[in-house]
């Protein structure tokens, strides 16, 4: 069976349980088990080849440009781990089926479990370290979900987050390490990397890579000082603890070290970092385990300790040590998984895992007791069980490893073994031995086969491997060791080596000492409780919580909604960077002759200065500032006229009028004054920012105006082709409707959208809610004028209305050749209508408003689009114009351009947009209770009731 398929099977198995959450435990577990079994079968089919020494590969391109390929490999090491993952996985599946209660969402559980299994299997089958990273991080994620499986338990949630944080951090560090490793080796494929030992260990980047990768491995395998997350992960359901936190996930770190052993091991750095970390972890965790009352906590620390042991062996960097490590991986998986399950059984039956509330279970649950005894003795490293064998090998290696002093390593290793004997006896003794108690939370008895079957099978393995290691396990150890060390290995494991070996006496001492410690447990416990010691969770929270608080404060303070500060920062940044860009480039001042200054513009300039200052100074009085703003706009438009831009002048002035009217109408509902609330320093700061920005803008445009174009401007073409190509003499207008008609198209769309936005906004305001209420009981602050519709004004506006419209049409028609055009025309007609509103009120004018504004806008945009698209019929691009001259007497010959049609669209859109905007305000006014009488005048001749 192809490795890729095998790797995919667990994920397939994850699918259905999740989808059929309601379908009950048997369906879910059965489905998962089926795929689990298939995968195991696949591995089994490949086993003979692997044992023959072959390395099975399956390669697919995934992301070649990165060197990330879906390459899988199966060698001895992979075989060992795949066997563990799938074999124990099957047992866990069986065990969990009985363990989980009716109320638990079993479908979810099996989905998560199979996701984890797939990720784990992926790690051990990857032949590409980037692919390995993918699966690596997925184990962190799926274990996060599994630990937090019981959502309602706070410790579950916290444990899950802690595990994700620590292992996630390790994973990120490992990403860095792996990328560096790949850079050195020139490939991310293991098959290549494993051949690059020399290059890698010679590289300057070796140490960074090593450290980063080891951080990943240590966090995953709960090595000191990253071990603290594992005990908190025990809030997961026991099947999870048994699977992830004893047999598989925590071994991923060991796997990685074993996997990278050929290229990373053998250097002093490797030895000192790995061996020392392992040693410290082994002793420290074993000691803590001795004093834990929670069965699972005890097992958790025992697990950490054994992981340390294996890490230490890998750290030695010798072939024999590696072999011992491999062997202990197998043995630990068997007895520790069994022990977790029995702990779960006790918890399940007695409803507590607290040793101090247990004891004497021997008689109540004999089967469980039997299983536990064998597994525990193996954990303690007593003959004839498999734990003894690998522990002997460990002590043997330790005894002749030079670390600080010749004897140091051996001695310390013995101490570690001693502790593990002690806590093993405590686990067994204080739970099962002793008198039967009558105060169990729930009187326990042996569970059904569903629960004890799996651990029983594992203990059988414990016994068999212990009794006949050569036949039962040596072949696997050989294969794995060969894969780890890269050279053929042949294990020679047996129970009895005679009395000579030092290791024997070391373990005798360990057992003896362990029994003594066990006896002295009470006084030691008292001592332990008195000694202060760091509590991992508190430290972890002590880091995370303040950081979270800091982030909250920082984020809140930075983004507190103070737009004025945002803008200040933004403006300063813009000016500063602009200045930097200018300063860091070469600049030659321009050579253009300045146009002479005359009196009139100079006078206008002074006027502008006054008006501008006026606005700034008097901006607290909004009405005044508005009037002066109008003056500024007026001067600007006059300036345009003076500087040969008639179109701009016309546009500016008409826009000015409409804008001011709009602002006046809005001001009717806004406060009339701006309170003085900025402190003097604040005003000075803003003044400084403003001044510098002004200097920047002024200086920039001056520098530009005083120089010639570096290259002839494209405007020349426009001047040359306006008449011949565009059929108009007003080049500006021809540019607007022809050369750059597409801009104008976008521009009128903008206006149209603006009107729609304003309309929608008004609807939202008037729909009800605080704004509407505020309007409904609106009391005009300023006293209203005596007569709202002055006779003179009404009459005047009536009279000029047709004139305005005429002018508008005239301006529109001549636009193509003389200053004017659709936009200006639209504004002029709009103004004419606005005047009617002002004179006779909205209601009256609206009553005479035949064409709906929306229609105007939509129609305008459509006409413009249609004119543009019309050129498609001629096979020309969008917006290609066409024109001809028509002569119908008595009129003189005039020219008709499709551009004029386009301009009509502009006209309509502008008109509609302006009126829609103004009418929206009027609607607000109406809601605010300004009775717009439907009469043209306040006093209508012949209608007495008008007032």
């Amino acid at each position, binding site marked *: 069976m192809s490795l890729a398929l095998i790797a995919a099977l667990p994920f397939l198995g994850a699918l259905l349980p999740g989808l059929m959450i309601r379908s009950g435990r048997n369906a879910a577990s059965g489905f998962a088990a089926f795929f689990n079994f298939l995968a195991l079968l696949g591995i089994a089919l490949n086993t003979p080849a692997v044992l023959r020494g072959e390395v099975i590969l399956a390669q697919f391109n995934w992301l070649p440009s990165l060197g990330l390929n879906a390459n899988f490999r199966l060698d001895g090491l992979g075989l060992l781990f795949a066997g563990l993952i799938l074999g124990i996985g099957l047992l866990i599946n069986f065990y969990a089926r009985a363990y989980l209660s009716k109320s638990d969402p079993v479908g979810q559980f099996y989905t998560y479990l199979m996701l984890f299994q797939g990720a784990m299997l992926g790690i051990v089958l990857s032949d590409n370290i980037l692919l390995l990273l993918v699966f690596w991080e997925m184990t962190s994620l799926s274990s996060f979900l599994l630990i937090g499986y019981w959502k309602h338990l706070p410790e579950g949630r916290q444990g899950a987050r802690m595990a994700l944080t620590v292992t996630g951090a390790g994973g990120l560090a490992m990403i860095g390490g792996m990328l560096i490793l790949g850079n050195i080796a020139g490939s991310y494929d293991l098959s290549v990397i494993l051949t690059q030992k020399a290059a890698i260990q010679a590289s300057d980047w070796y140490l960074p890579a090593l450290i980063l990768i080891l951080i990943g491995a240590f966090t995953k395998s709960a090595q000191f000082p990253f071990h603290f997350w594992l005990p908190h992960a025990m809030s997961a359901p026991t099947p999870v603890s048994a699977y992830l936190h004893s047999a598989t996930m925590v071994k991923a770190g060991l796997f990685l070290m074993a996997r990278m052993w050929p290229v990373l091991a053998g250097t002093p750095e490797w030895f000192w970092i790995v061996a020392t970390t392992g040693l410290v972890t082994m002793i420290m965790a074993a000691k803590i385990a001795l004093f834990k009352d929670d069965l699972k906590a005890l097992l958790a620390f025992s697990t950490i300790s054994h992981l340390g042991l294996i890490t230490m062996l890998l750290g030695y960097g010798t072939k024999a040590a590696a072999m011992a490590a491999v062997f202990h991986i197998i043995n630990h998986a068997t007895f520790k998984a069994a022990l977790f399950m029995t702990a779960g059984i006790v918890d399940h039956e007695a409803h507590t895992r607290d040793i101090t509330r247990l004891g004497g279970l021997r008689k109540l649950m004999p089967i469980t007791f039997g299983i536990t005894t064998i597994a525990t003795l193996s954990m303690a490293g007593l003959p004839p069980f498999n734990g003894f064998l690998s522990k002997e090998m460990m002590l043997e290696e330790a005894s002749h490893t030079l670390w600080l002093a010749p004897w140091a390593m051996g001695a310390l290793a013995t101490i570690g073994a001693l502790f593990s004997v002690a806590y093993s006896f405590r686990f067994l003794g204080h739970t099962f031995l002793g008198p039967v108690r009558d105060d169990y939370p729930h009187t326990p008895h042996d569970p059904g086969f569903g629960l004890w079957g799996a651990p029983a099978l594992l203990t059988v393995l414990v016994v068999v491997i212990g009794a006949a290691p050569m036949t039962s396990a040596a072949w696997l150890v050989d294969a794995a060791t060969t894969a780890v060390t890269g050279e053929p290995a042949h294990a020679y494991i047996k129970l009895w080596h005679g009395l000579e070996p030092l290791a024997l006496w070391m373990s005798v001492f360990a057992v003896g000492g362990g029994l003594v410690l066990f006896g002295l447990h009470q006084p030691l416990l008292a001592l332990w409780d008195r000694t202060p010691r760091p509590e991992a969770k508190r430290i972890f929270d002590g880091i995370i919580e303040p950081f979270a608080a800091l982030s909250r404060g920082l984020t809140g303070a930075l983004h*507190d909604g103070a737009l004025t500060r945002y803008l*200040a920062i933004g403006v300063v940044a813009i000016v500063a960077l602009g200045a930097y860009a200018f300063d860091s480039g070469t600049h030659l001042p321009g050579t253009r002759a300045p146009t002479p200054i005359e009196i009139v513009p100079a006078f206008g300039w002074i006027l502008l200065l006054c008006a501008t200052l006026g606005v700034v100074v008097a901006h607290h009085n*909004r009405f005044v500032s508005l009037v002066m703003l109008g003056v500024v706009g007026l001067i600007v438009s006059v300036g345009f006229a003076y500087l040969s*831009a008639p179109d701009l002048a016309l546009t500016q002035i008409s826009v000015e009028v409409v804008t001011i009217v709009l602002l006046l109408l809005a001001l009717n509902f806004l406060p009339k004054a701006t309170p003085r609330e900025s402190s003097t320093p604040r005003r000075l700061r803003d003044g400084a920012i403003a001044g510098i920005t002004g200097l920047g803008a002024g200086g920039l445009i001056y520098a530009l105006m005083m120089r010639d174009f570096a290259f002839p401007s494209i405007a020349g073409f426009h001047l040359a082709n306006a*008449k011949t190509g565009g059929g108009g003499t007003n080049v*500006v207008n021809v540019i607007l409707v022809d050369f750059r008609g597409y801009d104008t198209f976008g521009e009128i769309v903008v206006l149209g959208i603006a009107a729609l936005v304003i309309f929608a906004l*008004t609807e939202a305001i008037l729909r009800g809610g605080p704004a509407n209420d505020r309007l409904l009981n609106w009391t005009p602050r300023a006293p209203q004028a005596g007569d709202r519709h002055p006779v003179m004004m009404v009459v005047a506006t009536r009279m000029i209305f047709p004139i305005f419209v005429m002018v508008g049409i005239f301006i529109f028609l001549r636009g193509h050749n003389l200053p004017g055009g659709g936009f200006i025309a639209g504004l002029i007609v709009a103004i004419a209508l606005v005047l009617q509103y002002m004179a006779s009120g909205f209601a009256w004018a609206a009553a005479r408003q035949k064409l709906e504004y929306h229609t105007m806008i939509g129609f305008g945009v459509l006409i413009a689009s249609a004119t543009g698209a019309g050129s498609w019929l001629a096979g020309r691009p969008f917006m290609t114009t066409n024109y001809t001259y028509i002569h119908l007497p008595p009129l003189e010959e005039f020219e008709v351009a499709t551009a004029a049609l386009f301009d009509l669209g502009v006209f309509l859109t502008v008109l509609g947009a302006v009126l829609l905007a103004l009418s929206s305000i009027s609607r607000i006014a109406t809601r605010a209770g300004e009775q717009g009488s439907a009469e043209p005048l306040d006093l209508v001749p012949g209608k007495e009731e008008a007032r």
Partner: protein
Amino acid sequence: MELLVASAVGMMTAAGVYLILRQRTFPVIVGLAFLSYAVNVFIFASGRLTVDLPPILTKTALGYADPLTQALVLTAIVISFGMTAVIVMMSLGAYLESGDDRIDMTDTPEDDT
């Protein structure tokens, strides 16, 4: 002439920037209007200054002002008009909804938890 125009641009920019840093919506809108005057003149001037040479083709003209920048300014004016209209109405709406025309939202919903 260039000096006058440049200083005018500077003035209006400065005024605009000062006003957009005020704390109420209305002066900010006025400030934005100022900025759009400033930038319109800026674009216009970027076509260099000419007197009495409108870009209207005639037989007798000695030369023409840059028509392109004028067209660009026209577009800019129109667009900024639309934008002004929208922000005016929106600040009006915001004022009516909250009874307060401060532009800073120092009381953002996430803070009143």
